């Protein structure tokens, strides 16, 4: 923090990045990237996965070295040799996956690597006091002696920010800071960013959520294929314009037209409650060919609800009927047998076996189909996999490692896994999380197609646009309670948020 207020006005004090290039082997991931970050402003860096945002931010934060180009930071040439050198120069980065030690206290985390010492012993009192002061500056009332692992993700993120503040950071790079935050927590983060901004700090803000960018950023830089393709002096650029610059083509529509649902109720949920009370007395039904969106803040119980319906978590009371027949929810196997399938929230941990091929991933859970007598022959797996791959247009071959696929294609494999049964109820939890904007439309088309083929579809999403664009009706949860079901005609941003925050 500069003591002389005139410095924050000086044009020489920002970060100037010019002509940065970086290649890995023959692949150029960054070409001639130039932009500036002025003191006291938030610059949003947008682009699809692989556009070069991470490479740029890693270069600025000192963890990657550029092949060419130069930077000027606060009037001096700047080329950090390591993250530590960048931190010494006042540049810090808050990674998407927080880098904290869960079994150490808040204060120890803030001062890790440079614990305060007095007379050869750790000066816990001073550390606690100073960490506490930085947390208060962020408006966070947490004991500095508490173990970080016991804090919620949002609070952990603020410990990271407090850590950067004690390091006298003047430029902070945020990589997808709100990916794990609810909207109240996001609002708190924005408040803190605005406050620090007023004190003269600068921010580079990387996010996939374009609505947030409009709310927090002063300027926008759009990247594609390692190049900067657009610079906007204002943040209130129409979303479609930014998306088109990100994907490099015109986007006709994100959401497919929805077909008229049938009349038969395929999924009927009555007074469903969880043992941990993460949701209580939820009742709804979904007809054949209908898409029901489930909206709510983080922690509202959306994921818990759909996991319970899919048999993944136990319930304490209530009932689920599929096509009129009650389902005894003893586990995922029972739900699958009854025709209820789930595309889980966390693709890498719950959706795919990363060590295995596309074919093997498709065969898991379908051995009754691939191997009717219990004999699994490679040819049968191959045939089954080709059918699934062809049906959903996955860009890959059955014997290719699934870890080599993009997120969108992995998601299609998970959907393809279930599609051949065919299921009666298809549940998708955060179907486009971590998937490029350009690839999302294809997933939406698949979801609409599931409904068109007569399944009852349930979509949980934190992306409100997605829920509104994709659903016939929207069920809103708040703190585990069902606040209402809105029809497509009455569901709007405002209407949903009103219920979600009630």
């Amino acid at each position, binding site marked *: 923090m500069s003591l002389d207020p005139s410095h924050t006005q000086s044009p020489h004090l920002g970060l100037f990045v010019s002509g940065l290039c970086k290649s890995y082997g023959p692949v150029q991931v960054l070409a001639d990237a130039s932009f500036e970050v002025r003191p006291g402003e938030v610059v949003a860096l947008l682009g699809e996965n692989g556009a070069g945002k991470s490479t740029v931010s890693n270069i600025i934060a000192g963890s990657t070295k550029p092949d060419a180009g130069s930077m000027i930071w606060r009037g001096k040439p700047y080329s950090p040799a390591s993250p530590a050198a960048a931190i010494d120069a006042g540049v810090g980065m808050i990674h998407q996956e927080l880098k904290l030690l869960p079994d150490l206290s808040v204060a120890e985390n803030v001062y890790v690597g440079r614990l305060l010492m007095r007379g050869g012993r750790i000066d816990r009192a001073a550390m606690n006091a100073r960490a506490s002061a930085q947390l208060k500056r962020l408006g966070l009332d947490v004991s500095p002696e508490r173990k970080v692992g016991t804090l919620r993700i949002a609070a952990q993120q603020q410990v990271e920010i407090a850590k950067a503040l004690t390091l006298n950071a003047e430029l902070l790079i945020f990589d997808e800071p709100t990916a794990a935050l609810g909207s109240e927590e996001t609002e708190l983060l924005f408040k803190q960013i605005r406050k620090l901004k007023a004190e003269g700090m600068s921010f580079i803000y990387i996010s996939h959520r374009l609505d947030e960018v409009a709310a927090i950023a002063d300027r926008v830089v759009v990247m594609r294929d390692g190049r900067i393709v657009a610079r906007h002096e204002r943040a209130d650029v129409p979303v479609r314009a930014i998306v088109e610059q990100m994907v490099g083509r015109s986007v006709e529509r994100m959401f497919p037209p929805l077909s008229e649902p049938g009349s038969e109720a395929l999924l009927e949920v009555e007074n469903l409650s969880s043992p941990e009370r993460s949701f209580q007395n939820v009742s709804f039904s979904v007809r054949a060919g209908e898409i029901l969106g489930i909206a709510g803040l983080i922690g509202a119980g959306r994921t818990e609800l759909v996991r319970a319906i899919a048999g993944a978590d136990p319930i304490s009371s209530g009932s689920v009927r599929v096509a009129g027949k009650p389902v005894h929810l003893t586990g995922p196997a029972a739900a*699958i047998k009854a025709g209820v399938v789930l595309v889980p929230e966390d693709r890498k941990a719950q959706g795919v*076996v990363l060590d295995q091929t596309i074919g093997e991933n498709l065969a*898991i859970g379908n051995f009754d189909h691939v191997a009717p007598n*219990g004999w699994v022959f*490679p040819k049968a797996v191959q045939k089954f996999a080709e059918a699934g791959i062809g049906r959903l247009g996955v860009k890959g071959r*059955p014997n290719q490692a699934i870890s080599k696929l993009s997120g969108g294609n992995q998601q299609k494999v998970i959907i393809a*896994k279930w599609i051949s049964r065919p299921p009666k109820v298809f549940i998708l939890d955060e179907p486009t999380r971590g998937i490029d904007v350009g690839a999302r439309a294809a997933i939406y088309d698949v979801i609409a197609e599931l409904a068109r083929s007569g399944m009852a579809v349930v979509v949980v999403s934190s992306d409100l646009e997605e829920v509104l664009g994709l659903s016939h009706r929207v069920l809103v949860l708040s703190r585990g309670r069902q606040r209402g079901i809105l029809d497509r005609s009455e569901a709007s941003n405002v209407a949903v948020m009103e219920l979600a925050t009630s």
Partner: protein
Amino acid sequence: MAVSNGASELKAGPNAQAAAGAKLSALFAGTMGPLIGLVLLCLALSLTTDTFLTVRNILNVLDQVTVLGIMAIGMTLVILIGGIDLSVGSVLALAAMVMGFVAHPDHLNLGMPAGIVTALVVAGLCGLVSGLLVTVTRLPPFIATLAMMSVARGVANMITDGSQIIGFPDWFTSLSIIRHFGFLSVTVGLMIVLAIIFAIFLNYRATGRSLYAIGGSAEVARLSGIPVKSLTNWVYAVCGVLAGLAGIVLAARLDSVQPSSGFGYELDTIAAVVIGGASLSGGVGSIGGTAIGVLIIGVLRNGLNLLGVSPFIQQVVIGVVIALAVATDTWRRRAQ
């Protein structure tokens, strides 16, 4: 029509090739490195000794690895699902002591068949308890089987208060001595048959493939409807039964059973599986690889004996081989 037929044929070509490739790579999945190591080892020993490459000596190696080989099959299953079983050495001893106690004329004298069956049941129960400790009590497999290792060893000692039981019927000891068709003892044959059965099971049975899925990601497997808990229980139970069977084979080879037998075998067994290319984090491994791992350990011991290397140096060499085998595997994977 003709055009579309031509197109589909064109398509079928690479697909058929890919299928054949997938088959080959499935059989040798992750075992190429260990296989080359085994071949080089055999070559080196053939050149440095006149006795290694004789039928008699090769049959000796097979005899010597039967106990290790049978246990390693069970351990392969456990490691495949991301577990570990430290109790196999103790369960081997317990099963052998139970068999001796039930069958031997000085004790219960109920006959060998009753002894063998009881031994296998007890061994299976030990495995099942380990499995339940993992799936129901949710102990980490390392701790659950460490506990079983101690309990089984203690019970093995309690049966005769620590003393050995000597002398079994001739037909029993001849199982490991008489070589039918001039080369195959019953015990070696048993090991080979078990290896083939379990290789087929893992490669071509839905349940076997499910074990790979569990090891790759237990949560993905569970959400896909695979009964992860019951399969885990089964795998530990089977591993126990195979350890018990190894104890019976050892009894036939030694014509005696003692509560201290099998001490430290769990580490040899784990080493064989890991040298064979299995990953301790689960999801990767095969019976073929384990067979190669078992043979590498067997050939190495045999060869070092032929060369007159002291057993202490042998331990050092085997330690180096374990480190080398796993390190080359890791480097190869990183290079890919």
